[in-house]
C-alpha cells in the first residue's frame, strides 16, 4: 500500500508541475461551458426580418405589428417590390421576408382565404425552420383572435406544453452535454498521455523492473484523475446552476455518483488506448479524434439519436457518452431517481468492466 501511495504521489507531482496540462484540465471545462452556454445557441432572439406588404390594409398591418412586437423578430426594413427580395437576402442582414399578397384583406373576407409568403434564408437550415415555425405560430394566433366569437362547426385546438425545459433554453441541453465531453476527454486523454509518456521517456522500463504490479501502475495512474475529474464535474454543475440558472431537479448525490462511474469508464478507455499505442502523440490523436467526434455526433448531445439513420442509431449504443448524457439529463432536468436509470447505469458499469479487463489483458509486463 505504501508503494502504491508513493506512486500516486509521484503522479500528482507530474500533474501539478505541468502547467499546460493543468490549464487544459481546468481551463477547458470553464471555457467550453461558457462558449456553449452563451455563444452557441439554437434559440431565436431578435432576428432581423423584412416585410413586403403589397396590400397595406388593416389585417396585414396588424399582423406586421404583432410580429414586430414579439421578442423573436425585429423588422429591419420594408420592401416595395418582389425584385428587392433577392437583393435583401444577398446583403445578408435579414434572415426572412414576409410577403403579403395584393388585396389580402379583400381575399380574406370574400374568399375566406388570404396568402402570406414566408421566405427564409436556409443557408442555416436549423434557424430557418425555427423562424418559419415561430412566424407561422404568430400568424395562427392572430387568426384565432380574429375568429373569436365566430361560430364554427368544430375546432381542433392543440395545447402545447414543453415539459422539463419550458423556455426551451438550449443551455439546459448543453450543460449535461459539455459535462460529458469534458469528463470523457480529460479522463481518457490525460491517462492515455500520462501512461504513454512513461513509455516514451523510458521510465516505463524502470517501472517494469520494479516490484510494482501492472495493476498498481494502472490504478495509480487513474486515482489522481478520478479526483481531478470530480472537481471538474463539480465546476461544471456549479457554473450551470449559478451562471445559467439551471435547475437540478434530481438528487445531486446521485448525479455525483453517476459522474464518478462515467469518469471511471472514461479512464478505463484511456488506459485501453495507452496499452495499444507507443507515443504520446498517437495517444492524443486517438483520444481526440476517436472519442471527441463520436461523443459530439453520436451521443445525442447535439443531434437527436432518434432522427439518425438506423445504422448510426445502432452504433450510438456503443458510445459510452450516449448513456451518460441520458443519465445526466434525466437527473438534472427530469429529476428521476436511480430506478429509471438502472439500464443506463448497468450498461456503463458493464462497459467499464470490459475496458478494464481488456486493458489488464493487453498491458504488457515486458517491453514487447
Amino acid at each position, binding site marked *: 500500500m*505504501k*508503494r502504491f*501511495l*508513493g*506512486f500516486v*504521489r*509521484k503522479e500528482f*507531482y*507530474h500533474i501539478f*508541475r*505541468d502547467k499546460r496540462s493543468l490549464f487544459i484540465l481546468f481551463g477547458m471545462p470553464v471555457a467550453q461551458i461558457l462558449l456553449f452556454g452563451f455563444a452557441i445557441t439554437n434559440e431565436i432572439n431578435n432576428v432581423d426580418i423584412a416585410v413586403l406588404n403589397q396590400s397595406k390594409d388593416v389585417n396585414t398591418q396588424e399582423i406586421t405589428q404583432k410580429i414586430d412586437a414579439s421578442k423573436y423578430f425585429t423588422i429591419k426594413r420594408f420592401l416595395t417590390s418582389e425584385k428587392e427580395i433577392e437583393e435583401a437576402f444577398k446583403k445578408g442582414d435579414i434572415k426572412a421576408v414576409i410577403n403579403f399578397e395584393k388585396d389580402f384583406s379583400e381575399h380574406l373576407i370574400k374568399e375566406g382565404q388570404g396568402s402570406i409568403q414566408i421566405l427564409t434564408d436556409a443557408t442555416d437550415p436549423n434557424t430557418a425552420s425555427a423562424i418559419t415555425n415561430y412566424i407561422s405560430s404568430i400568424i395562427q394566433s392572430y387568426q384565432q383572435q380574429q375568429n373569436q366569437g365566430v361560430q364554427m362547426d368544430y375546432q381542433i385546438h392543440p395545447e402545447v406544453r414543453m415539459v422539463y425545459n419550458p423556455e426551451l433554453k438550449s443551455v439546459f441541453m448543453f450543460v449535461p452535454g459539455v459535462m460529458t465531453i469534458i469528463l470523457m476527454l480529460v479522463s481518457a486523454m490525460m491517462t492515455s498521455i500520462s501512461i504513454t509518456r512513461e513509455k516514451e*521517456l*523510458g*521510465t516505463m*522500463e*524502470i*517501472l*517494469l*523492473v*520494479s*516490484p*510494482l504490479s501492472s495493476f498498481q501502475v494502472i490504478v495509480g495512474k487513474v486515482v489522481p484523475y478520478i479526483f481531478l475529474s470530480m472537481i471538474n464535474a463539480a465546476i461544471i454543475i456549479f457554473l450551470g446552476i449559478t451562471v445559467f440558472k439551471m435547475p437540478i431537479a434530481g438528487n445531486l448525490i446521485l448525479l455525483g455518483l453517476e459522474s464518478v462511474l462515467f469518469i471511471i469508464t472514461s479512464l478505463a478507455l484511456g488506459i485501453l488506448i495507452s496499452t495499444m499505442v507507443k507515443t504520446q502523440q498517437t495517444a492524443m490523436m486517438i483520444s481526440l479524434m476517436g472519442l471527441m467526434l463520436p461523443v459530439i455526433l453520436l451521443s445525442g448531445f447535439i443531434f437527436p439519436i432518434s432522427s439518425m439513420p438506423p445504422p448510426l442509431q445502432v452504433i450510438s449504443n456503443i458510445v459510452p457518452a450516449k448513456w451518460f448524457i441520458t443519465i445526466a439529463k434525466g437527473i438534472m432536468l427530469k429529476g428521476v431517481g436511480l430506478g429509471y436509470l438502472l439500464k443506463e447505469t448497468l450498461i456503463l458499469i458493464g462497459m467499464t468492466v470490459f475496458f478494464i479487463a481488456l486493458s489488464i489483458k493487453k498491458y504488457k*509486463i*515486458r*517491453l*514487447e
Partner: protein
Amino acid sequence: MGILVENISKSYKNVAAVKDISFEVKPGELYGLIGPDGAGKTTLFRILTTLLVADKGQAKVAGYDVVQDYKNIRHSVGYMPGRFSLYQDLTIEENLNFFATIFGTSIEENYDLIKDVYEQIEPFKNRRAGKLSGGMKQKLALSCALIHKPKVLFLDEPTTGVDPVSRKEFWEMLKRLQQKDITILVSTPYMDEAALCDRIALIQEGKILEIDSPEAIVKKIPKKIYDIYASNMYGLLTALKDFEHAHSVFPFGEFVHYTDKREGFDSNELKIYLENKNLQDVSISLTEPDIEDVFMELSRK
C-alpha cells in the same frame, strides 16, 4: 547468486541481435560487456532484466530464472538503462524517494550504500532531474538503482555522454560497490574502461569473441604492436595500408597501431618506406597492446 547465461539468442523480426551467447558472472564480480554500438549489449541486458524474452536459451539472475521467476528478479536487481530514464520533472530527492518507496524501503534505511554517490549530488537535492548535468544525472540514476540494495546491478553504458572526470569517478564508485557484495554487470563501448573490470566479454554483432580478465586477454594477442607517428595522419594510414607486409593498421589517438605479418620485423625498413612516401617526422616504437588492439585483432576474423 551471480548471473548465468546459456545459449541465449534473440532476433527482432529477421535481424539477429544476440546469437547463442553463454557466459557466467560470479557472485561479487565486476563484469564488463565490451563492444561497439549495435553489438547486442542492450538486448542482452533487457533479457537479463526480464524486459524481453529470449527466443532460445536460458538465463538465471541471482538464482532466479529470467522467464519463470521474473517477479523475484524484479525485487532483487538494480537496473540503469542506457538512456537517462528518471522523472525529469521531479527533483533529485523526489526521484530517489520514489524509487525507495516502490521497492518498499526508504532513503535512510540504505543510506550507507548510496552515501558515496549521493553525497556528491545531495547539495542539489531540490533541483529537478531534467536540469542536471550528464555526470550528475548518472550519479542520480546510480543512486536510484542502488537504493533498494540490489543483489545484482545492471548498468547499460552508464558512462556514455559523461565527461572524462565523471567517468573516472563513476568507475571508482563501482569498485567500492563491489566491496559491498553486489554483483555488477556493466556494458561500455570504451575500451579503457574495460581494463577496470574483473573479467570482460568482448562482444560484436551479437556474438562473444573472447572472455577473460583484461590482463589475460591482452596477453593473448600474438603480434607485436607498433605506435607509428607521422605529421600527415591520412597519408600515413594509406601508406601503411599499401605496405605489402602490413597485417593490421588502425588509428589510435595521434598514433597508428601497426602489426606486421612477419616474425622478424625491421622498423628501419618501414621508416624508409614511409619517408619515401613523403611523410615527415616519422617515428616507430614498440608498444604494449591494450584491449582495443585485442578487439581489433579479434574482429578481423
